[in-house]
């Protein structure tokens, strides 16, 4: 499965991604909005971290700051010890399904970030990711002919194709119906296990978090602070009716402040 040029990450001791005292304050017209307050987070290479928190608390802001789309008001973000100062193809942000380019085919979308590669390398890379996200047969199709789930797989493939160190997913399956969402969860897990990228995924789905993540970071309401970090120490594949799974799920619900007994 490994492709030339794609390094298999080793579990280095230094964190892949380090967030230090990160704060973001937006300057509104008449008032200032503090979105992030003193966030400290270390994520190791190949880790899958889910971010959960009340809506409007600053989850997207956190991803934007980590991705370099937003310069922080205070503190810093560094990846592999290097300060993040702007958008870069070494870390790709994946949004909801509308992010794919409608004027390009599946191949065109996946190859979008590969302009620097030779033609044959590019074709090889595209073929690899078409297969990884199981869009074989749709190489020449346009996004308007794909379902929501396929578009989202396409967007993930486009992101992975440039061989990023870190993938940021902002409620990637939020716009999909619940059955597709559960299927996409399995797909994402399979892709992550095959490629072992570091993934940060914002979700509002508790089960998604407990099924996917190595760790779940729980954010407070705005301005977001890290309220809790829950380590999900269950190996994959996870049995969603095992006592351990249910315990962790309940714990997470409690952290968010939701009753798990009604």
């Amino acid at each position, binding site marked *: 499965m490994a492709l030339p040029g794609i390094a298999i990450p080793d579990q280095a001791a230094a964190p892949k991604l380090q967030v230090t005292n990160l704060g973001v304050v937006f300057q509104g017209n008449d008032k200032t909005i503090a979105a992030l307050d003193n966030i400290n987070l270390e994520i190791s290479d190949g880790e899958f971290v889910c971010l959960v928190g009340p809506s409007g608390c600053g989850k997207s802001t956190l991803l934007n700051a980590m*991705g370099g*789309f937003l310069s922080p008001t205070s503190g810093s973000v560094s990846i592999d010890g290097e300060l993040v100062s702007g*958008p*870069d*193809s070494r870390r*790709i*942000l994946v*949004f909801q399904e*509308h*992010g794919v*380019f*409608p*004027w*390009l085919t599946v191949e065109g979308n996946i190859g*979008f*970030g590969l302009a620097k590669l030779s033609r044959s390398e590019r074709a090889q890379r595209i073929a690899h990711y078409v297969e990884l996200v199981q869009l074989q047969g749709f190489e020449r199709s*346009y*996004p*308007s002919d794909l379902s929501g789930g396929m578009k989202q797989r396409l967007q993930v493939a486009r992101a992975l194709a*440039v061989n990023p160190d870190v993938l940021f997913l902002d409620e990637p399956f939020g716009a999909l119906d619940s059955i597709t969402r559960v299927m996409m969860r399995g797909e994402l897990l399979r892709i992550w296990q095959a490629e072992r990228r570091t993934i940060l995924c914002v979700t509002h789905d508790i089960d998604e978090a407990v099924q996917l993540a190595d760790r779940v970071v729980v954010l407070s309401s705005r301005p977001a602070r890290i309220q809790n970090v829950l380590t999900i120490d269950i190996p994959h594949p996870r049995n969603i009716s095992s006592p351990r799974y249910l315990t962790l799920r309940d714990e997470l619900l409690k952290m968010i402040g939701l009753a798990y007994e009604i």
Partner: protein
Amino acid sequence: MKRSRQENLLEKWLLPLVAVAVLLAVWHYSVLMTGTRVFPSPLSVWRGILELLHKHVLWADISDSLRRVVIGFAAATVVGVPLGLCLGWFPSLHQVVNPVLELLRPISPIAWIPVSIIFFGIGDPAAIFLIFLGSVFPIVVAAASGVSSVPPLFRRAGRNFGLTNAQLLRRVIFPAALPQILIGLRISLGIAWLVVVAAEMIAVDSGLGYLVIDSRNSGKRYDLVVAAMLIIGIIGLVLDSVFRLVERIRSVRWGFRHAA
């Protein structure tokens, strides 16, 4: 499936044909009943069309009109698309230029005829200039609004893949705005065809517009006037249909789903 196809055939061909037939009948009987000597009946117009087709001037007139439209419209495209892209890309420039655009835009190209004759004299350049004026503004406006309505998501994705400004413009902004630009171009082509006829009535002495005015002035041949009008209408329709084919190209079709 079969049923809907039949309905489609009915709606697409049969009913419009009926409408045309009704129009012709109303026209024919109105001419008969009013006993007008001036306005031609459909039949004499048909004979007029045949007469024009046999005279070689018609083809010369058509090709003169088309040449002017093609040159004027091409010039408007070459100037208007880049200008519109720039205005959409630099909102501050747009703010500076917009009042001038908004002032010039509502002035009918017809009003420019005297000015353009002063500039260019009687002849092709005057007509081409008028066509250019008539069609450049919708193109600029469409391109500018196409750029400014590109979803921020696309720009961010482009940036994320490390595109420079020039690359972002070429690989994201332009293709994302292209459907709107094409809509602007199609509107402009329609205007260009309207303007060429008007311009040829005054600023030159050939072309379909000249044919209309000349048929009236030399011998009050109203059958030929109406025949020329019909030919103008048919060519305009053909131009529009040809342009519509462009909207079927796969890389822009996504932008026409709702418009179509």
